[in-house]
C-alpha cells in the first residue's frame, strides 16, 4: 500500500490520530448501536429481530414513525413554500426596511427551535397570555399542542433555512437570463415558473432535504409542545430513560430505523445537490421597485407578517424575562429578578456552556482544519475513510448521538480484575480511583477505560464529533480553492510541511475557518438533544437547565436564560459580520 520511500511524517501521524478519534467515538459507537439493535433485552448476546418485530407490531411505535414523517414532511413543504417565496420577493423587489427584517430573520434562525415552542406555549397554551385574552371574550382558540404546534414551530423556524439557501442561489442567477426570458415573450408568473424557479430547483430540493433532516432530528420541540404526539427522537429518549428502566437494545433499534430514514433523505440530498447550474455572474440581480401599488402592499404585508411570526417567539421570550413571576404566574410588573435568580441558580450551567463550547470549538477548529488538509492534500485510502466518516453526523441526530456515546462510554471498556489488598483498600476508601481524568477508572472489581458517564468530557466529545465534520468539510472546500503551489512555494523556500501549514496554508484559510467556527459556536452553545442524554446535575448547560425549568413550569428563569443565550448569539453574529464583512449569512 505504501509507495517506496514513504515517509511517516506529521500528516501521517495526524491521519492516525483522526482515524483513532473517529474510530473510537464514531465508528465503534455506530457499530455498537447496530449490534444492540439486533439483540433483545430478554436474550442479550444473541442475534434477533425481536425489537423490530415488537416495533412493527405495536401501534404506538408504528404511530411514532408516522407522526415523525408526517409532521416533518408537511413542515418541510410549508417551510419551502414560505422560504422560497420570501427569497424570491426580497431578491427581486425592493422591500422597505429589508435590512432590519433580515436581522430579525437571522436572529430567529439562530435561536433554538424549542425557545419557539416554549414561547408559543406561553402565548397560546392553556394558560397562555393570548389564550386568556381571547377567553375573556368567550373565544376559544384552537389548541397549540400536538401536531399543530409542532408544525407551526417547525415551519416558522425552518423556512428561514430555505430562505437563506434559495436567496443565495437566486443571487447567483444572472439578471440577463431573466431579461432573455422577457425578450422571448415570457413574463410574470410564467417567467418565474419556467426560468427563475427551475434554475434554483437543485438548491431548493437539497435545501428541502436538509430541513427535513433537521426537523426529523429535533427533540426539544415535540417534547415541549407535542404532548401526546410522540415523534421518534422523543421515543428514543423515553425508551432509554423510561421509568421502568431503560432498554438500550430497543432504543438502539428505534435509532437504527431513524438513521435508516435519514440516510435515504441524505442520499436524496446528495443527488439533488450534485447537479447545480453554473452561470456567468456578470449581471447580478437587482431588486426592483414594484410598480403595481396593490402588489407592493401585498408583498410588504406578506414579508412583514412572516418575519413578525418568525421573530415573535424571540421577542416574547425577551419581554417575559423582565416580567415578575409569582407562584408560577406571570405578573405585569417589570423586574430583573429572573436574571438574578438565573445567575444564582444557574451560574454553573452558564459556566459549563462556555467551558464546553470553547474547548470544543478550539479542538474542532484546530483538528478540523488539519483533517481537512489531509483529505484534500494527502489523498490516500485513509483520507478517503476520513472523508466518509465526516458524512456520518449528518444522518445521526443528537439524541441518537447521546445514546451511542452512553452505550459505549458510560462505563467504558470494563475489565474484571482483583486488586492487591492495598489497592483494594484505597479503592474502597475513595470508591473510584481516577487516573488521567477519566481515561482509566478503578472500581472495586474492575478497571474501566474511558468511563466517561456523567463527565463534562463526554459532552465535549459529543460536540466535537458532531460538529467537527462540518468544519472539516467547509475547511476542505476552502482549501480546494487555494492553489497547492503556494504550499510548494513555501517548501521551495526551505519550510517543511508543518511550518508551511501554520505559516501559509492556515493563515490563508483563516477568514473562512473563523466564520465557520463562529457558526459552529452558535450551534454548540444551543445544543440540547445530545446534552440532554449525557448531562448530570454537575454538567448541565444553559439549554438543559432551561429545558428543565420550562418542563417544571418555571418560566421566569428559563426566559432569562434564553435571553442570555440569545445575547451571546447576537454578539457572536455581530462578530461574524464584522470579520467576514458580510451583512448576510451565506449558507
Amino acid at each position, binding site marked *: 500500500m505504501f*509507495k517506496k*520511500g514513504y*515517509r511517516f511524517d506529521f500528516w501521517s501521524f495526524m491521519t492516525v490520530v483522526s482515524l483513532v478519534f473517529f474510530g473510537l467515538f464514531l465508528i465503534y459507537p455506530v457499530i455498537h448501536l447496530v449490534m444492540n439493535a439486533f439483540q433483545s433485552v430478554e436474550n442479550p448476546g444473541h442475534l434477533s429481530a425481536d425489537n423490530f418485530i415488537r416495533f412493527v407490531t405495536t401501534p404506538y411505535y408504528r404511530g411514532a414513525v408516522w407522526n415523525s414523517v408526517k409532521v416533518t414532511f408537511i413542515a418541510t413543504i410549508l417551510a419551502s413554500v414560505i422560504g422560497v417565496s420570501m427569497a424570491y420577493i426580497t431578491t427581486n423587489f425592493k422591500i422597505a426596511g429589508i435590512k432590519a427584517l433580515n436581522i430579525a430573520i437571522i436572529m430567529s434562525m439562530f435561536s433554538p427551535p424549542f425557545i419557539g415552542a416554549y414561547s408559543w406555549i406561553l402565548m397560546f397554551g392553556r394558560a397562555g397570555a393570548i389564550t386568556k385574552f381571547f377567553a375573556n371574550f368567550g373565544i376559544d382558540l384552537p389548541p397549540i399542542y400536538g401536531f399543530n404546534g409542532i408544525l407551526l414551530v417547525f415551519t416558522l423556524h425552518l423556512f428561514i433555512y430555505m430562505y437563506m439557501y434559495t436567496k443565495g442561489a437566486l443571487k447567483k442567477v444572472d439578471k440577463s437570463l431573466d431579461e432573455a426570458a422577457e425578450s422571448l415573450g415570457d413574463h410574470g408568473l410564467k417567467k418565474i415558473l419556467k426560468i427563475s424557479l427551475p434554475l434554483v430547483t437543485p438548491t431548493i430540493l437539497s435545501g428541502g432535504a436538509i430541513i427535513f433532516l433537521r426537523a426529523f432530528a429535533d427533540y426539544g420541540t415535540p417534547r415541549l409542545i407535542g404532548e401526546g404526539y410522540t415523534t421518534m427522537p422523543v421515543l428514543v429518549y423515553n425508551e432509554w430513560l423510561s421509568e421502568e428502566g431503560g432498554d438500550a437494545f430497543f432504543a438502539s433499534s428505534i435509532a437504527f430505523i431513524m438513521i435508516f430514514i435519514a440516510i435515504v433523505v441524505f442520499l436524496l440530498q446528495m443527488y439533488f445537490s450534485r447537479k447545480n447550474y453554473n452561470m456567468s455572474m456578470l449581471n447580478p440581480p437587482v431588486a426592483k421597485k414594484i410598480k403595481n401599488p396593490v402588489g407592493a402592499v401585498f408583498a410588504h404585508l406578506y414579508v412583514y407578517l412572516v418575519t413578525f411570526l418568525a421573530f415573535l417567539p424571540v421577542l416574547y421570550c425577551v419581554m417575559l424575562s423582565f416580567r415578575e413571576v409569582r407562584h408560577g404566574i406571570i405578573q405585569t410588573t417589570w423586574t430583573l429578578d429572573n436574571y438574578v435568580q438565573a445567575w444564582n441558580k444557574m451560574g454553573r450551567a452558564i459556566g459549563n456552556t462556555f467551558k464546553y463550547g470553547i474547548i470544543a470549538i478550539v479542538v474542532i477548529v484546530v483538528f478540523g482544519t488539519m483533517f481537512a488538509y489531509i483529505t484534500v492534500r494527502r489523498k490516500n485510502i485513509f483520507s478517503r475513510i476520513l472523508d466518509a466518516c465526516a458524512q456520518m453526523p449528518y444522518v445521526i441526530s443528537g439524541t441518537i448521538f447521546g445514546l451511542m456515546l452512553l452505550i459505549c462510554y458510560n462505563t467504558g471498556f470494563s475489565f474484571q480484575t482483583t486488586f492487591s489488598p492495598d489497592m483494594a483498600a484505597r479503592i474502597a476508601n475513595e470508591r473510584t480511583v481516577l487516573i488521567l481524568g477519566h481515561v482509566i477508572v478503578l472500581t472495586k472489581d474492575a478497571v474501566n477505560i474511558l468511563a466517561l458517564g456523567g463527565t463534562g468530557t463526554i459532552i465535549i466529545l459529543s460536540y466535537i464529533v458532531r460538529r467537527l465534520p462540518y468544519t472539516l468539510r467547509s475547511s476542505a472546500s476552502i482549501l480546494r480553492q487555494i*492553489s497547492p*503551489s*503556494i504550499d*510548494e*512555494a*513555501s*517548501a*521551495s*523556500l*526551505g*519550510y*517543511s*510541511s508543518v*511550518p*508551511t501549514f501554520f*505559516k*501559509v496554508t492556515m*493563515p*490563508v484559510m*483563516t477568514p473562512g475557518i473563523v466564520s465557520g467556527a463562529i457558526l459552529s459556536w452558535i450551534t454548540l452553545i444551543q445544543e440540547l438533544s445530545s446534552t440532554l442524554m449525557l448531562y448530570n446535575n454537575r454538567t448541565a448547560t444553559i439549554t438543559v437547565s432551561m429545558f428543565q425549568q420550562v418542563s417544571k413550569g418555571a418560566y421566569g428563569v428559563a426566559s432569562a436564560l434564553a435571553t442570555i443565550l440569545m445575547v451571546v448569539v447576537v454578539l457572536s453574529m455581530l462578530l461574524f459580520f464584522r470579520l467576514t464583512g458580510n451583512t448576510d449569512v451565506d449558507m
Partner: protein
Amino acid sequence: MAVAIHIKNTKKQYEDNVVIRDLSLDIKPGELFTLLGPSGCGKTTLLRMIAGFNSIEAGTIAFDDKVINRIPVYKRNFGMVFQNYAIFPNMTVYRNIEYGLKNKKLPKEEIKQRVAEIMETVQITQYKDRYPDKLSGGQQQRVALARAIVVKPQVLLMDEPLSNLDAKLRIEMREAIRDIQKKIGITTVYVTHDQEEALAISDRIAVMNKGDIQQIEAPEQIYLRPYNTFVADFIGHSNRILGVVKEQSGGRTTVRMPSGPDIVVENLKPLKKDEEILVYVRPEEFTFEAEGSGIKATVLVKRFLGKYIQYIMDCGLGYNVEVSADTSSAEHIFSEGDTVYLGVNTRRINLFDKQTETTLIEGVESNV
C-alpha cells in the same frame, strides 16, 4: 557558486502511465536552460522532479555531485517561480520576499538589506507594503521572481512563468528575467510551450516530446538545424515535401522535387540513389524567381501581417504550401489568383530521412 544539474536515466510514472521513460540531461553551471515542448510532453513533470514535488521512480538527479533524490523539497535549496506566481495572499510584498530569508536565521539587518536590494533589482520597491490582490500580473511576477532569488538558491526553476501575462508584458518580463538571471549567474531551468519565448531567453533549449528529449541545442541551431521532423514542425512552421535522391557526388546531392526543377544541396550524409527523403522548407525559405524558372504556383490566399506577407499557394502538389515574404524586401505584393515562380534557399532548408525522420545534414546532432 553556480551548480551543474545532472539528470541520469530518470523515470517517472503515475500508476501505469509512464510519463518519462529514461531521460538524461546535463545542465551547465549558470546557464538558462529551457525545456520546450507541447503540453503533456513531460517538461513540467521533469521540472517538478528536480524541485522534489514529484517523486523519481528510477535514475538520479544531482546538483553538482550531490544526488538529491532522497532530499526533501525544503532542503534542496532551489528557488521556484510558479505559473500562477503562488504569492502568499496573506502577506505583503515585503513579507513575501522576506519569508524565505527568515527561515535562514540571518541577522535582521542582513535580511532587511537583502530584501531591499532585490526589490530594487526587480523594481518593486514602491509596492512593498501592498497585498498581492492589489498588484498587476507583471508586478506579481516580479515579486515571485524576487522571492525565489533573494534566498540565493543554487538553482532557479521557472514553470511557464509568463503564460498568464498579456503579449506586451510577456516580452518586457522575459527581458527582465534574462537580465536578472545573467546578473546573478544562477543555473536556471525554464519551462515553456512558447517557442518564441524559448528562443529569445535561453542559452540552450531541450525540445521534448512524449517524455523524451528530441534535441538539445542553442536557440539558433534548434531553429536552423532541427535534428528531426518533430523539432522542425514544433519550432516555426515548415512545408513538408517528398523528394527523391537523383544522384550524390562530390559532396553535392541532387534531389528531384515533385514539381518544378531539381534542387542541389551540399553537406548531406551518404544516400542511396532513388531514396525518398523529406524536404522541409520554411515559408521564408522560398524565393521568388523570374517567370518561367522554379516551381510554378498560384496564390490562393494572401494575408498581409504588417512585417511580412503570408501566402497560401497551390504548387500542384495536391496540398497547399505556405510562403512568406518580408514586407520591406518584397518587390511586389501578389494578389490572390496571381501566378508566381518559386525557388528554395538550399543552404537553409532541412532534409530528413523518410523512415527515421532524423536529419540528413552532416554534423547536426541531437546531443541527447
